[in-house]
């Protein structure tokens, strides 16, 4: 069984608080058909999650999930089926940061764990942005702004 197949059944966990204060705020509630203006930036939860994970990776913020309440949200396969290259990107990023290095490629649990912890870190970063300015991401321009502000670390 290859990695992707193994990953498909696994789930990405995250903290409930992040679901409420970030994911639900920035993603459309399931099934709503609102017009462009009142639509949230992300139409599905996995998008917001992936975005948070990437932010965590870029800022190298890894925070173990710990024992707080977590919410099993979605299967990895959701990202794979809807996000195309993003799923592969996550795997690669996870591997690049994993202690196990390339061996992570045959360790689905490790891949998941790393993604989860960087996503967690990413959520914390987003959380503190919002604490400073509640409306930071109310303006859709903010997402692209944030993108363009990312610094590329030169190796």
């Amino acid at each position, binding site marked *: 069984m*290859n*990695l992707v197949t193994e990953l498909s059944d696994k789930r990405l966990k995250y903290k409930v608080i992040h679901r409420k204060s970030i994911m639900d705020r920035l993603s459309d509630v399931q099934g709503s058909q609102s017009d*462009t203006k009142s639509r949230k*930036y*992300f*139409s599905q939860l996995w*998008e917001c999650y*992936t*975005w948070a994970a*990437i932010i965590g*990776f*870029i800022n190298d913020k890894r925070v173990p999930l710990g024992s707080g309440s977590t919410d099993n949200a979605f299967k990895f396969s959701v990202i794979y089926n809807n*996000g*195309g*290259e*993003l799923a*592969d*990107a996550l*795997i*690669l*990023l996870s*591997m*690049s*940061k994993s202690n196990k*290095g*390339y*061996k992570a*490629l*045959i360790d689905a649990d490790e891949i998941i764990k790393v993604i989860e912890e960087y996503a967690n870190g990413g959520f914390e970063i987003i959380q503190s942005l919002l604490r400073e300015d509640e409306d930071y991401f109310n303006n*859709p321009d903010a*997402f*692209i702004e944030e*993108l*363009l502000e*990312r*610094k*590329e*670390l*030169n*190796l």
Partner: protein
Amino acid sequence: MIIKSVKLKNFQSYYGEKNKIEFTEGLNIIAGSIASGKSKLFDAFYWVLNDKIFVTGKDWVFTKNLGISFVNDKAKNESTAIDDLIETSVEIVVKNNNERGSKNINYTIRRQFLIKRRELGDCFSSENWNISSSDLSVEYIDKVTSNAEIAKNQEAKDIIEKLFPSKISPYIWFQGEALDKLIDFDNKGTIRKAIDYISYVPLYKIMNNIISEVDKKITNRARKEIGKLTSDISKYEEISKKIEQKNASISNNKQLIEEKSKSLALRKEQLDEVERVLAALVEFPVLNEEKIEIENDLNTIGESIQRLDINERKKFSSLWMLYGTKHLFKSAADRLIEFEDYRQSLISKEYELPEDVPGDVYLNKMLDQEICLICDRPAEKNSNAWNNMKAKLNRKLKPEYLSEENEKINKEVGGFKAKLGSLSRNYDSIHDEILDHRKKLNEAYEERIIYQDKLQQVKDDIDKLYNKRGIDISDGTLTHRKKHGEYKTLNEIITNLNRKIEGTKASIRDAEMDIAQLEGELSKIQRSNDSVKVIEEEIKKYTKYLSSHIANIEESEYNKLINLIESEANMSFGEITSVNNTIDGYIKIDRETFRVLNVDNDGRELENYNTGHYTLMKMCIINSIISLTNEYKDASYPFITDAPTSNLDNKATFAYLQSISETFKQSIVITKDIDENEIDNIKNKDYVKGLFHLKIKNDTGNSVMDRKEAFTNITTIKN
């Protein structure tokens, strides 16, 4: 004429009998907050004199159609038994010093209204009361007999008409909503009527009539008398008759001209109206089309913005969010290479055989032969030795680099190498894609703003059309055609009228010339007796002289008066604009249309004034009309008004009040919404002679004012 006091009993919010205000000369201010009973006070004045109350949103309504609605609620509520009687009355005492030469007389004008409880049940329902009609009475001391007299019905009405002539009473007081109903400044006739009333213009007409008639009579008589003295009476009489005929025809023609002129004026007004409508209509379709076009363009822009937006989110969630991770992918690539290197090292290692292990071929040979060729001992299949040899071979057949784990990793690495390659390629296009998207989006936003501004501009233009002309422009083409037809017809009619008038004038001139000639012939006829003088000939000189001069006074006095009204109005207007920055310019009365305009120094119309400013201009004109009336008519009337505080700021209001106090012998101003702490401020102004405060109260101590318990309380602060 001065209002000395007003007393209210059970009238609207005024309960019982103790409601009296005694006014002084000069400026009286009645202050109170909303719903304290101020406008009801105003209603009281109007009701006494006119038997009507102004109902919000409707019109002036006669008492007989009001039921018991204006009777005080507390009084109604206190009624518990059948046959209970409630008297509602308003009494004003007026001192008339407008009659010259007579003592000042006080008139007590009273209107009374009685209701009697017919049935129990809802005390607020008219059905449960018997209603009398309202009764008017005027009490006064007869200046001749010194007896107290009471006038009722028509007699009372006549006295009231004398005291408050109906031509001027609309200008004596006005209040808020009622203002536009009472005085329609857009109607040419209104100002003309006011001018006629307060000016001598009608008097000049009378003067002209009298002296012309006398002149005519004297002239005719002169001719007759002279005729008696002539040598040729029959010829004289013949010529005289001709002259008389000519005079008669001139007289008829003059009358005809007057009629036609009136008709012409009316037609011109109609034409004016049609022109206004046409102007609005012509502009409207063009503007409307423009509006629709801009709206369509806005829709298109909106759609493209939407598309851009959808595209952005799609791209964000499929690629763009990876922006900034390049270094991480590099690190991932490094990891993959790490594995490949490792694997390669394993592979190379594999081909370096340890010395004690024979090569593959040799091992296979030994297995086949079932003999260990190294130690030269037989190794039967499945014997220990044979198995050992096999194990060694297997071990070699599965080199480390081919271990399950490594194989698995290798497969993944291979796959992900490819994916990484694809990702990298796509990654490189992210930045440009984003910038391009943004550029397109910004351009669309800018375009949208431009079009939105354009749309607003067009809408404003259309509104201006509507507001300025006050015309319903929704019907469009049909109305346009109709109005255009009217326009043509009216123009024809006017042309014809003008022609007729000119023609008639020409006839008059011809007749006058004929008369002159005939008179010349007359004078040539010898008198039989030169020494006899005809007195009428002498008198005729005087009457002719006076009538020719007086004929022109009417028009010049008229123009003089309008100028006077305008400049008086501008005096008070100027005082207010000097303290209020939002209004500017001057008041101008358009001589043709009599519309009231706000103009700048050069006489150009300013269009930025709002309703408040317009009200202010009207009030200044009314001020000036009344004050001129007071001068002209040698009479003074009080000025009773609602101060438009909500339309002016406080400084402007005070300036206005001060101006009023100096213009009128007595003025009564009912102010809107002045706080209790403002009252002290007003009280101390020395141009305020009387100050009264109205407040809604109840005796029960409830903070909520229930209509059944609440009543207006009058406090006299200064008087």
